[in-house]
């Protein structure tokens, strides 16, 4: 075993005299001849692994082992050699002095008293805790794992693999962001599967439904712009006049959570004028006529206009244009499904697309996202549980992990008692700032016996941990990334050495496995060998090879590849529902306690005490709790604010720049006011983010209210992030 520098020092007396005797601890004689010239600039291929539509191809520029700058990869046909503002700040992330550098231990948790420990000691402590819990409770179920989207690289599923290799554990299951929409499309089409975004250039008419591409998927804009240059009209429907909405030919400031009502109104008008593509709808779907009856008996333009706040003539205008301008594309954003009726609203919009025959067409589609290019081996994720592992007996009688709801994490962790959850392992995840009801999260963390967090920065979650393990950035790792939006896949090379003692999730898993097996042979099944590149290579399989038209992953080093798929999803008409057709009438939905048809479901009404809706959408300068803490971002966007409509502000005596207290029974936040008519009079907007040296967190007032769907495909319903009601006062 190679001695680490620290161990080496420990056993060496510090004495120094002449050169011959000089005792180096940190420096060492170079074997090669001294060459102090600047190396040639080297480039590497990387892929931004963040939870983002665009998953950009990147070129990193490295000189003398130091990352000098990051550019877009011109060989990437969707991101086209350009990055977003976040992508250009990566040097600040990699080389920030704030990075978590070494494994560290906090005693007691939350005290801020940290000791630096070796990887060996960290693994020893963790392994012993795992084994102790296992012997105390007879299973590893007291260990709860929560990982989500901090890094979507496929090799990072080694974090899941870490858990599966120690036995059956408690798992935070679900996805917070988009599950209601996923289920909606699953009920309707069998899964989520959207057109190639590059295909949007072929659209003659475009509706962006609660989608702020300018901030969250900016590389789609050139394709939208191209369509517009060719004459397409852009309509944006959103309660907030976003940057994207500001560019639209028509912006509709709809009442929050009433998108389904607008789509129903449109559908009724399309029906009345017989602009329905009866052939497509009847040949490809089940239950269409049933829904038509529903429209005829239940929906009027009056009602739709009343519900949505959109004048009838506008509903008529967009209905006519959408139905008669072919092909017409709709893009459903994740914001609009974060409601208690969000999934249902997406189902109605899906039906609108089916009704007009826009599904399965190039330049059309009801686009939401896809996972068609994610057919990797997940080699690092799938490990058998050690022999004799005791698991949780699920409702189907099978033994396995105990799944709890990621979207009501604090509550669900606390609710377990057979056995209780005693230890948390967090990777790629910062519930301390991102989960609903921050106060409940804090209490839950306090109740744990042991918390391990793998991260690169000292965020709220690390603050509440016993042990933090330093995570590599994507420039320090091999990996492969796919997108849930475009069709490209790229390899991520190791461009620089991992800084300090940071390690990837797989390397951590290997170390843990070694330690656990030393302490108790057979207690962990995770492999203990493999270079980072080998781990990445193992994610490739014949399916991925043929999808990309390659025979070896190394071909991706020449440039990212686009999956060989048709530009229009569902063009073959082979839907993946039980009936193999579009299910306007979904028995599955009905079985799950939801309406079988895309009918109107009431939105959540504001309680009297808390009449204002607080929107906490994705920020421009960060991605969840990433990026905003970097110094360049702090210059570009130094502090959070809340956008308030001047009319609402006047009602509460608030002026520009005032500090505003936003609160409800769950908690409160204080933030600076910005008066703007870009928001609606009953909606205030504050963008979620984790700022450096700030306790700002929009989730203190957010109740973990589930959205209506998500359980079917993702295991749990989503969070109705946008059904968050508060009141305000001048602070």
């Amino acid at each position, binding site marked *: 075993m190679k001695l680490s520098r620290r161990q080496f020092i420990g056993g060496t007396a510090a004495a120094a005299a002449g050169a011959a005797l000089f005792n180096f601890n940190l420096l060492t004689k170079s074997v090669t001849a001294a060459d102090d010239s600047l190396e040639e600039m080297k480039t590497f291929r990387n892929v931004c692994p963040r939870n983002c539509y665009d998953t950009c191809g990147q070129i990193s520029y490295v000189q003398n082992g130091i990352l*000098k*700058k*990051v*550019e*877009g990869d011109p060989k990437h046909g969707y991101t086209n*050699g*350009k*990055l*977003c*503002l*976040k*992508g*250009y*700040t990566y*040097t600040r992330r990699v080389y920030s002095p704030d990075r978590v550098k070494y494994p560290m231990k906090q005693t007691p948790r939350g005290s801020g008293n940290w000791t630096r420990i070796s990887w060996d000691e960290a693994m020893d402590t963790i392994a012993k805790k795992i084994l102790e819990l296992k012997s105390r409770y007879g299973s590893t179920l007291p260990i709860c794992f929560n990982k989500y989207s901090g890094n979507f690289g496929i090799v990072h599923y080694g974090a899941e693999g870490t858990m599966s290799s120690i036995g059956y554990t408690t798992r935070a299951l679900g996805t917070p962001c988009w599950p209601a929409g996923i289920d909606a499309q699953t009920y309707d089409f069998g899964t989520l599967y959207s057109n190639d975004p590059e295909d949007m250039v072929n659209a003659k008419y475009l509706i962006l439904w609660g989608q702020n591409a*300018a*901030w969250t998927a*900016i*590389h789609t*804009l*050139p394709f939208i*712009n191209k369509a517009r240059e060719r004459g397409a009209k*852009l309509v944006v429907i959103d309660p907030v*006049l*976003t*940057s*994207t909405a*500001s*560019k*639209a*030919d*028509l*912006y*509709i*400031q709809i*009442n929050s959570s009433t998108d389904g009502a607008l789509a129903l109104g449109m559908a009724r008008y399309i029906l009345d004028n017989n602009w329905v593509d009866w052939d497509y709808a009847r040949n490809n779907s089940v239950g269409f006529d049933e829904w038509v009856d529903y429209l005829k008996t239940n929906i009027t333009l009056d009602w739709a206009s009343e519900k949505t*706040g*959109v*004048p009838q003539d*506008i509903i008529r205008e967009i209905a006519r244009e959408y139905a008669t301008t072919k092909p017409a594309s709709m893009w459903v954003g994740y914001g609009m499904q974060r409601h208690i009726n969000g999934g249902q609203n997406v189902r109605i919009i899906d039906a609108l697309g089916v009704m007009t025959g826009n599904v399965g067409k190039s330049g059309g589609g009801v686009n939401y996202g896809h996972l068609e290019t994610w057919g990797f081996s997940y080699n690092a994720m799938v490990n058998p549980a050690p022999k004799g592992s005791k698991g949780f007996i699920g409702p189907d009688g099978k033994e396995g992990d105990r799944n709890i709801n990621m979207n009501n994490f604090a509550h669900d962790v606390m609710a377990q008692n057979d056995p209780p959850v005693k230890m948390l392992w967090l990777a790629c995840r910062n519930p301390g700032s991102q989960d609903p009801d921050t106060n409940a999260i804090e209490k839950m963390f306090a109740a744990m016996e042991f918390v391990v967090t793998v991260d690169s920065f000292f965020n709220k979650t690390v603050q509440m941990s016993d042990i933090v393990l330093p995570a590599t950035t994507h420039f320090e790792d091999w990996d492969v990334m796919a997108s849930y939006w475009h069709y490209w896949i790229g390899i991520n090379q190791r461009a620089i050495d991992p800084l300090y003692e940071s390690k990837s999730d797989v390397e951590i898993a290997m170390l843990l496995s070694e330690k656990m097996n030393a302490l108790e042979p057979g207690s962990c099944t995770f492999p203990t060998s493999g270079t980072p590149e080998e781990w990445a290579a193992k994610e490739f399989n014949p399916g991925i090879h043929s999808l990309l038209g390659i025979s070896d992953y190394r071909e991706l080093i020449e440039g990212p590849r686009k999956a060989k798929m048709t530009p229009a999803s569902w063009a073959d008409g082979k839907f993946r529902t039980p009936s193999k057709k579009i299910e306007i009438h979904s028995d599955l939905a009905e079985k799950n306690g939801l309406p079988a048809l895309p009918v109107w479901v009431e939105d959540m009404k504001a309680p009297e005490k808390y009449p204002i809706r607080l929107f906490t959408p994705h920020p*421009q*300068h960060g991605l969840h709790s990433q990026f905003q803490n970097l*110094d*360049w971002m*702090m*210059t*570009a966007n130094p502090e959070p604010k809340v956008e308030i*409509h001047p*009319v609402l502000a006047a009602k509460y005596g608030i002026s520009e720049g005032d500090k505003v207290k936003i609160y409800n029974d769950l908690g409160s936040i204080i933030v600076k006011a910005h008066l*703007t*008519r*870009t928001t*609606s*009079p009953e909606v205030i907007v504050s963008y979620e983010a984790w700022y450096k040296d700030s306790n700002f967190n929009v989730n203190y007032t957010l109740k973990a209210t589930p959205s209506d769907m998500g359980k079917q495909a993702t295991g749990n319903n989503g969070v109705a992030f946008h059904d968050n009601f508060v009141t305000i006062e001048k602070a």
Partner: protein
Amino acid sequence: MTKQLGFLHNSEKCVGCQGCEMACKNEYQTDAAPRWRQVFQLREEDYSLPTRMFFSMACNHCANPECLRVCPVKAYTKREDGIVVHDHDRCIGCRLCLMACPYDRPQFNPAQKKVEKCNLCYQRIDKGEKPACVAACIPEALQLVEINEALDQRMGVLKTLPGLPSPDITQPAIRFIGPKQGKQIRRD
């Protein structure tokens, strides 16, 4: 001077993403504080409808650069192609150019106690490449152009936008295509 290079900013296309601003920082790995290029949001009250509209501005490489005129150490020079180059080595940090520029584009670097600004990526331009900000602009709202009569006669090309200082002061080498407002169905 044989020509005048400059920027054409299309506010109709710009979504205020600040990619240009960060691409600039990325190219030169600048310190945090100085913003050679900055994206500004136009004030809502200057337009009939509230919208998020932006323009992006770096040094305007003016035809009459005030910075160059007032600088006591000749740190500023104007190249044949009109680029106003600031020589960081010559600068003594007197900050007179900061007082003189109506656009606040020379930026003081508090760590180095010197001024710095956009040099229009002249090294890139000399190699036939686009400036980093232009190359990074996803909606293609920012372009490198030659400022001349022909450009000024093009439809929709403006010399200024509401909220900007009069171009008469320095004759900035920037032109705009104004923001376009779509139809808005509002509830307020």
